[in-house]
């Protein structure tokens, strides 16, 4: 099992690889792209913000350092959608990144770009982004048929579902989310933009109305729904908007899947993804260290229960771990209980 870490600068590579990352992913927004296309047309999921590097020179430095240290580098070209005028530039960038800079894989969400890349430069290694919303084995096969080598499963995939897909389509690597940013909705089916603020962090006022033959909602019904909405707000708070927070043990807050690592490993999942290209270097470092510690526990032969205890000790948030509100895979904790 591999550990994939985010980065946005060559200077972070030694730190991340030295702490246990096997693979890195990054993005770049070359000046030619911003010259030709509006800011409304992001080159990848992180748009023009600090998650991306600005020059191919930086990308080259990053790749050279990673390769010297034995790590692979993946380049994100995973905007949810493109148009025809953008495809030639993207194909050219992909070819240059692969042939001259040495990128090991491209991360792509759009079926049109994936197909164009395979036609333009056969043999490119492509990983399908979580934005493609692959939730079943047939969808994994769909992207395999288009030439993809790996599929990154969406956040809201259960462990048993990931394992079933890994077993059903063993010739495609599967990658899953393991730490940091959450999404309340399905990222690949969310039609909003974060530039207006994440819609899930909107200050919503809720009102509940009956539909169909329901008749009036009782006061008890309304109380239950209002309580549920309040809990939903707490859950959202645990999944998004945790950018700068840390737990009592000093590790970054945000969604966590550490307890699921033994089951994911046993089930044949290939790679664990830490989120946050734009995050401070410290957050990336501590994130990689957490994941690697539990992965090492698995390698050392620790039981699933021991690994969960290790993970929850690292986090230092027993109440949150018990609630499952901070979990990518709450079913793991809820089925087995916590050990701390």
């Amino acid at each position, binding site marked *: 099992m591999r550990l994939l870490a985010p980065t946005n600068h060559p200077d972070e590579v030694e730190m991340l690889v030295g702490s246990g990352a096997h693979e890195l992913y990054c993005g770049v927004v070359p000046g030619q792209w911003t010259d030709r*296309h*509006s*800011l*409304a*047309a992001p080159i990848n999921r992180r748009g023009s913000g600090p998650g991306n590097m600005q020059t191919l020179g930086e990308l080259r430095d990053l790749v050279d350092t990673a390769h010297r240290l034995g790590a692979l580098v993946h380049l994100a070209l995973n905007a949810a*959608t493109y*148009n*025809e005028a953008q*495809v030639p530039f993207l194909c050219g960038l992909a070819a240059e990144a692969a042939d001259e800079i040495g990128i090991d894989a491209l991360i792509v969400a*759009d079926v*049109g*770009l994936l*197909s164009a890349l395979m036609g333009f430069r056969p043999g490119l290694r492509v990983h399908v982004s979580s934005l*493609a919303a*692959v*939730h*079943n*084995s*047939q*969808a*994994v*096969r*769909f992207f395999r*048929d*288009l030439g993809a080598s790996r599929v990154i499963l969406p956040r*809201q995939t*259960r462990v048993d579902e990931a394992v*079933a897909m890994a077993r059903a389509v063993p010739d495609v690597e599967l990658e899953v989310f393991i730490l940091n940013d959450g999404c309340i*909705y*399905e990222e690949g*089916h*969310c*039609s*909003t933009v974060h*530039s207006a603020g994440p*819609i899930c962090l*909107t*200050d*919503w*006022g*809720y*009102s509940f109305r009956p*539909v*169909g*033959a*329901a008749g009036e*909602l009782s006061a008890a019904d309304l109380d*239950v*729904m209002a*309580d*549920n909405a309040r*809990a*939903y707000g707490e*859950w959202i708070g645990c999944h998004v908007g945790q950018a700068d927070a840390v737990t009592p043990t000093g590790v970054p807050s945000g969604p966590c899947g550490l307890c699921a690592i033994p089951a994911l490993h046993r089930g044949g999942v290939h790679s664990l993804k830490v989120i946050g290209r734009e995050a401070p270097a410290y957050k990336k470092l501590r994130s990689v260290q957490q994941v690697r510690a539990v992965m090492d526990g698995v390698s050392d032969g620790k039981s699933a229960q021991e690994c969960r205890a290790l993970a929850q000790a690292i986090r230092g948030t027993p109440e949150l771990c018990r*609630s*499952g509100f901070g*979990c990518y895979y*709450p*079913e793991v904790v*809820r089925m087995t209980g916590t050990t701390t």
Partner: protein
Amino acid sequence: MTNGFSEVRSAAPDRDIQEVAVYLSRITDLPFREATRWKGLVATLSGADARCPDGRDRRIDPDLHALLFPHDAAPRPVRVYFGNEFCELRIPNRREFEASCAAVHEAGLPLTFVTPPVTDEGLGFLVDRLRHLQSSSPGSEVVVNDWGVLRLVRAEFRSLTPVLGRLMSKLLRDPRVTPRCGDPGMSPGALNSLRTCSLDIASYRSVLASCGVDRVELDNVYQGIDLDFRAMGLRPSIYVPHGYVTTGRICLPANAHLPRHRKFGTAAEACPLPCLRVEIGLTDRRALADGGVHQYVQRGNTVFYRQSEPLVSQGVTWAARQGARLVFQPEIPF
């Protein structure tokens, strides 16, 4: 092929919609099962006998009716959609599905079965329904909102016609932003980016063609759609008057009955289907203070925007000019 706001707002459709489909989430509980009523469905919905056995009044708002059908008071719908685009737990069970297929068949109308994104478990449900659909109504359309479902239909149900669902066309549908896309300060390049999507890419269309897809479903979006479907060899459908904003597997109302320690996971909890009973109004309190768009509606796991009158008019105009199918949703499709 532009679809600018000033152009749309000032112009009534200069021709009628060529093809109207009606999208019903459930069929078996509706009053117009008999074939005779199907033939004038929209007229029925406009008339006094649109009241359902459950007491619901399904008449179309007269203003909406006038917007949709300015030149023809009662066009005959040519197709019925049913199913759910958003939640695999709302895939009709076998009995409901077979009864619905039979009702539409009796009405003499073609059928479009709408399907959601699915897990492997949901795929299993769909295989069973698609087997029935293929044997009872070969040639029916299947709206796919999942690449895996598209592969399944193409591989195993070749007498069914796959249609690319609206979750698959990645147009921006953020009502916080898109109503302002017509503002004078918006650059042409930015506006163009927001009015197109991957359907514009030749290689994307090649993939669709290889899967037997030549129809694509679209939401009626504030910024307009700037794609030449005739030139692209695709047939569009446009949905009114409800657009979807976002969706996901974590369903707010479905968790209401669960104890806190089991809330907000994707575990296979038995769902009491509150989406059939409760609609949630979402008010953006900050936007309300700013005077922006602030009203949304959530049914089940999905947030919708109710299209404004100018937006419906824009969509109708666009559909008439493009020869697009107008998919009319009398209710939020849940």
